[in-house]
């Protein structure tokens, strides 16, 4: 685990032209400790992540944690507490059993779901019914994201040969979610160096235009888990802070947390890119492909790599890479404004940021 984090951290520091001595504080994010069975991993990793002798925070918001971690690190800089903060997030699922860890029953709850897919499948069904979306939309997303992943040297799954037919022929796991529409179980880490204006002087940077986080409870009966209020509220606050009134036109590319294919159209609506019920049409028209009106997950997204604790930060980091022109083979031409998005828990934690090529 230490080595995993260190690979990402060393690359981030090199990319930033900095060393550990330049870092004022470290913020670590990771999904539940239960996964790898290391309690409060920030403690055992303190030395490896360069935190010894410094302020160290650990952020914990389930699947969205990678995003929340970046937001917390950004707050530390924004609030003037530190000049340069290292944000790192990871998951080592090969030393874990995420399916089991996500199936345990909290006290006083009926055991109704098997794994994350079991929890979300009913929401996907509900979305399909509400929107009237045709059955193949999920498979379209899977094909797109896996083919994008093939352009990303860091992706876990890189499947340039994947087709609509092969996805639709794959085993049904939680109706209507099929095997090839499901995220992998990955080992991975992501590290980002955040700095103030001074730190950015004379170097290419991705500038934060807005950050937002909102939360809602897991089991409140009045929730809409298909189009969660917290997600809508976070997006509204985000666009307002960024001065964006028409996200579909003004955002060049979006890295959205899509662990099961159907979440692409669902989140496009929840984020306000399109009206409720219209998300699937954007996908069907190919507008979320590379070269489309709004490329979604050019990196291959969570469907190609899902080290759960890191996945949110990977979205945020990929968005930053896009506006810095550093996304290599999966670069969206001329991307100047990008969205990074993460969600977690029972579709209850939302964190997101907007980054841009220019200082706001």
């Amino acid at each position, binding site marked *: 685990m230490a080595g995993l984090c260190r690979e990402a951290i060393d690359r981030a520091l090199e990319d930033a032209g900095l060393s550990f001595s330049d870092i004022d504080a470290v913020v670590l994010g990771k999904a539940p400790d239960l996964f790898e069975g290391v309690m409060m991993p920030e403690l055992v990793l303190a030395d490896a992540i360069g935190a010894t002798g410094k*302020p160290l925070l650990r952020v914990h918001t389930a699947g969205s944690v990678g995003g929340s971690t970046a937001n917390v690190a950004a707050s530390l800089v924004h*609030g003037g507490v530190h000049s340069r903060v290292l944000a790192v997030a990871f998951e080592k699922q090969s030393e874990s059993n995420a399916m089991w860890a996500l199936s345990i029953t909290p006290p006083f709850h009926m055991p109704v779901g098997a794994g994350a897919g079991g929890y979300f499948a009913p929401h996907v069904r509900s979305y399909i019914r509400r929107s009237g979306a045709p059955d193949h939309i999920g498979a379209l997303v899977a094909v797109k994201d896996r083919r994008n992943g093939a352009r990303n040297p860091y992706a876990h799954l890189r499947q340039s040969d994947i087709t609509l037919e092969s996805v639709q022929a794959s085993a049904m796991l939680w109706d209507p979610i099929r095997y090839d529409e499901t995220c992998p179980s990955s080992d991975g880490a992501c590290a980002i160096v955040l700095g103030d204006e001074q730190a950015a002087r004379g170097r290419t940077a991705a500038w934060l235009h807005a950050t937002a986080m909102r939360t809602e409870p897991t089991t409140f009966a009045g929730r809409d888990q298909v189009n969660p209020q917290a997600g809508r509220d976070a997006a509204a606050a985000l666009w307002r802070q960024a001065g964006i009134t028409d996200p579909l036109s003004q955002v060049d590319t979006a890295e959205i947390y899509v662990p099961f294919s159907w979440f692409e159209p669902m989140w496009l609506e929840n984020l306000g890119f399109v009206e409720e019920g219209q998300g699937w049409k954007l996908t069907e028209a190919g507008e979320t492909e590379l070269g489309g009106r709004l490329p979604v997950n050019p990196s291959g997204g969570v469907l190609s790599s899902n080290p759960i604790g890191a996945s949110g930060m990977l979205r945020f980091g990929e968005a930053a890479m896009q506006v810095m022109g550093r996304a290599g083979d999966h670069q969206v031409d001329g991307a100047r404004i990008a969205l990074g998005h993460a969600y977690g828990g029972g579709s209850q934690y939302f964190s997101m940021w907007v980054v841009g090529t220019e200082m706001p």
Partner: protein
Amino acid sequence: MKIRTGEVDTALVYGFGKSSAGQLRRVLAMQLDPYLVGPLWPDSVSVAGLQARLGIDGRLWSERAMAEVAARSRAADPGAQIHELVTADELFERPYVADPLRAHDCAPITDGAAVVVLASAERARELTPRPALITGIEHRVESSHLTARNLTTSPSTVAAAKAAGVDGVTLAELHAPFTHQEILLRQALGLGDEVTVNPSGGALAGNPMFAAGLARIGEAATRVMAGDADRALAHATSGPALQQNLVCVLEGGA
């Protein structure tokens, strides 16, 4: 942080722990390196025992001094989980649980929660006549390798205290789940006899995980707001043998 960025004026902070639902000593053993140390199952009480032994052998504290901390903590608050009127001499006669630690040297297993309402200084003054203003809050972490540290001192506490500015405090709520750790922290922070330590009884009187540190801040703030102290320090710790430490300085504001 959110208050500091100006995004919000008030914030609710809470922590809770329900350790009775599990085996805390075993769970805390899993804070240590999972490959090289964890398999030995060094539980939290044993690790603290090693630290206590180092201090006893180094003549920094004694089992009797530890018993005195325990006696004082147990008497502090009739409403606390642990409340017992007993002398240090009586405690000293009780058996070990993990030599040199006796039961009274260790914080109890506690189910509990702590809540603090924070506000910007301006908003705080609207809400209460004598808010407790945070004039400094700092934290540092040390190496996870127990053998790389001098376990009888607390450099991270000292560094955090220095950065936070603790001069002139007359009251200190120290998050010490073991009696020897209260003595260790007192020594590390250079707190003289004029400083009242743990009037609440501290973690030894009740130690809800993920809340006990916040409770120290709350207890210190309560006394500052009541006028019992103008300047107080609250400390929180995490990890084996005081690996990570936070120091918060509170001042009575009018």
